[in-house]
């Protein structure tokens, strides 16, 4: 009975088959190199590679290294990782689903009854974890009016076709022949496209078009409230519970809870503005603001702690130690194991 380690690209699998089959899976692309797994490991089996280098530069190595001679597949790294990069499975079942194993408490949900499918969350999500679909009504359902082109009066000048903002008018242009000496054989309006703006009527040099828009006087009676349907989906593997979706949602449909509470402190005197932390942060907490007034310096490094999950990746990556990340609370499910409680609490600083 031995522990084996397999590398699949940059992903790692560590296994031990015994009374139970234990498998530890590491997915490299999800890892933020925050170092929490390295800190919690009770046997020091995990070593992280330098955070700045792994996120900013092309590297062949995996973001972490797991020593199969030390790893005992206890699952602590799996339970603390806020990025779903590590998962311990026992007989094929993730310990996140096994009663008795504590896990960090976090959530992200969109209430579909409140959601108006505006897609702000999808755009704002730093991990592209959100997918919003929406079905909009056809344009014709939102307008009402009439349009008619008198084909006898029409001189086929094509001005209405050129000016129509939605390309609803089409002339069948042709080179006139002696047997058919006309420049166009037909003119038609696509009433599905027409928005009754009246431009064609007003431009027609021979007043061949009659058109009336009924939206303003009659709109309330004739146009039904548009029905917009859609779906929302937050990919639980990609979501890092940063709360961008919650903060940006105009109707409070997104609700997020974070696994850690804490403080983020920046020493702007020491900071040299290298941008490593900005690029490393998985939650878009940090940015270099631009100056808004001539002659006035902008803040060197801006933070918005609403989005911070206190993972510590920024502090770990800073080459001049200008960032301090404090964790004051780790929210985890109850456990009887004193060793596990101690391990979680050791990450509070």
């Amino acid at each position, binding site marked *: 009975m031995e522990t084996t380690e397999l590398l699949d690209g940059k992903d790692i699998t560590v296994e031990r088959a015994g009374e139970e089959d234990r498998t530890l899976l590491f997915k490299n692309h999800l890892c933020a190199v925050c170092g929490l797994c390295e800190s919690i490991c009770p046997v020091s089996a995990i070593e992280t590679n330098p955070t700045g280098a792994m996120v900013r530069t092309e590297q062949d190595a995996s973001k972490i290294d797991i020593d199969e001679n030390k790893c005992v597949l206890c699952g602590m790294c799996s339970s603390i990782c806020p990025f779903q990069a590590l998962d311990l499975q026992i007989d094929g079942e993730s310990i996140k689903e096994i009663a008795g194993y504590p896990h960090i408490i976090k959530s992200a949900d969109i209430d579909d009854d409140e959601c108006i499918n505006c897609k702000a969350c999808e755009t704002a999500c730093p991990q592209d974890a959100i997918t919003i679909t929406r079905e909009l009504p056809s344009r014709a359902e939102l307008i009402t009016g009439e349009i008619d082109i008198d084909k006898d009066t029409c001189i086929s000048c094509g001005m209405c076709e050129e000016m129509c903002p939605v390309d609803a008018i089409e002339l069948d242009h042709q080179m006139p022949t002696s047997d058919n000496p006309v420049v166009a054989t037909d003119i038609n309006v696509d009433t599905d496209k027409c928005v009754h703006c009246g431009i064609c009527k007003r431009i027609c040099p021979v007043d061949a078009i009659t058109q009336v828009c009924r939206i303003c006087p009659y709109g309330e009676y004739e146009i039904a409230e548009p029905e917009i349907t859609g779906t929302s989906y937050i990919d639980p593997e990609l979501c890092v519970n940063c709360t961008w979706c919650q903060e940006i949602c105009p109707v409070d449909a997104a609700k997020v809870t974070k696994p850690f509470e804490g403080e983020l402190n920046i020493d702007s005197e020491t*900071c040299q503005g290298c941008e490593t932390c900005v690029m490393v942060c998985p939650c878009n907490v940090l940015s270099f603001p631009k100056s808004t007034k001539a002659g006035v310096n902008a803040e060197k490094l801006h933070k918005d702690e609403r989005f911070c999950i206190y993972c510590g990746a920024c502090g770990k*990556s*800073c080459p001049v130690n200008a960032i301090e990340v404090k964790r004051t609370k780790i929210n985890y499910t109850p456990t009887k194991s004193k060793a596990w409680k101690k391990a979680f609490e050791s990450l509070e600083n």
Partner: protein
Amino acid sequence: MAIGLKAYREICHGCGNCVVACPVNSLRSPEVAGGKGPTDDVDIIMIVEDGAVQIKNPDLCGKCGTCMETCPVEAIKLEEL
């Protein structure tokens, strides 16, 4: 398998971008922070010597990758040593 700083002097043009961009260098030397090569004897990670980058104090390197981003010819790299 540790990742560390490596200089490829034969590729280097000696532009000094890496020296002045490096946040560790800038913190240690105000001259470097101002965009010049140091004239004082402060220990910094690398300098331009004989026309190309020379790593002097690799232990000071925080492996942030800023130098790599500023190098126009990939003459300085963070890689497995």
